[in-house]
């Protein structure tokens, strides 16, 4: 089976760098972006199975990015990453088209499990 292809989008650059490296070590083809606009460009250029997306970012926020990504790639699964997955954020995220919501800080095994689930593996 080919590697899971994941895009991680968060304006915390050190976080993205570490997470990409950790997922790479686990056989995931992981890439990072630090804002919504860059993430949209990358989604246009490559096929990803899942996007892990921060809710609050400079410029375009996570909810807007979900909508724009699904315009280009309706089949793309998007998991929201947020500081608090309260009912409001989860409902808004899913209404915008997110697969699910994860709370920071995230356990790597829980994250992998969610990524595989979102990709239908």
């Amino acid at each position, binding site marked *: 089976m080919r590697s899971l292809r994941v895009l991680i989008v968060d*304006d*915390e650059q*050190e*976080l993205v760098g*570490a*997470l990409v*490296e*950790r997922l790479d*070590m686990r056989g995931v083809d992981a890439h990072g972006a630090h804002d919504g606009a860059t993430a949209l460009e990358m989604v246009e250029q490559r096929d990803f199975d899942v996007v892990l997306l921060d809710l*609050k*970012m*400079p*410029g375009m*926020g996570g909810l807007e990015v979900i909508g724009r990504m699904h315009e280009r790639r309706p089949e793309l699964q998007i998991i929201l990453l947020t*500081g608090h997955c309260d009912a409001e954020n989860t409902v808004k995220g899913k209404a915008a088209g997110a697969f699910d919501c994860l709370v*920071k*800080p*995230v356990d*790597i095994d829980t994250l992998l499990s969610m990524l595989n689930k979102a990709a239908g593996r």
Partner: protein
Amino acid sequence: MLWERGLQFLGGQTAAQCHEITNVLNTINEMVGLMGDLLWSAQHRAMDLDVERLAELTQKVSAQVQRGDQIVRAVNLFGHSADTPRAVFDLRSLLEQVAFMAQRPANLARVTLKTAFPQESISLENSPLGFQQAVFIALQIALGAADKERQVSLGYALADGGVEVHVTGADPLRDRTRVEQDERFLRHLVHALGGRVLTLMEPDDPNRITLAFPKHTGEKPGRPLTAAREDSNGS
């Protein structure tokens, strides 16, 4: 209304800074996790231990801890600014505090927030919390929509009997309805603090907001506001 909006400001800013602390902890969590992964690979997969990479990661974790510490100190100082309704405070220190707390909203609005302070500072006697709230609202008005990258600057100038606080780089294209709502409250708050809104994105100067405050409000002076004051529980 002033009291309720003041509480909203106190609670909202505390929550926002806690969110920033979560971001720091999240980053530390991933970097320490990565260090663990590198060690595990060296132990169980006979891979060479990347000592340089580990050293680099320890420095990055240390930098994040310092960042987190800065935020915690700022939250502590901010929380204590509500200790008394009136106190003597150093203007420059207080404005630096406001600018620090406004960095994240500025980043989200894709605005570079700079401070332009003269060498000379001044002690004011007023409500530290109310003063911060007034300047913060002025900054929020100036931040505007996140449709293009801009720069906003916070500064002050000593004036007869008091000080003028300037916010420049305001977005003249910002939705006027929202500006008017914030403006009404800002004028009300600044008046309650004994000051005046001198300019607020006027047609002849659309990028500028100027608030004028007296050196003291004429009421009985309060206790000096000290930085990083410990509370009675020693926390």
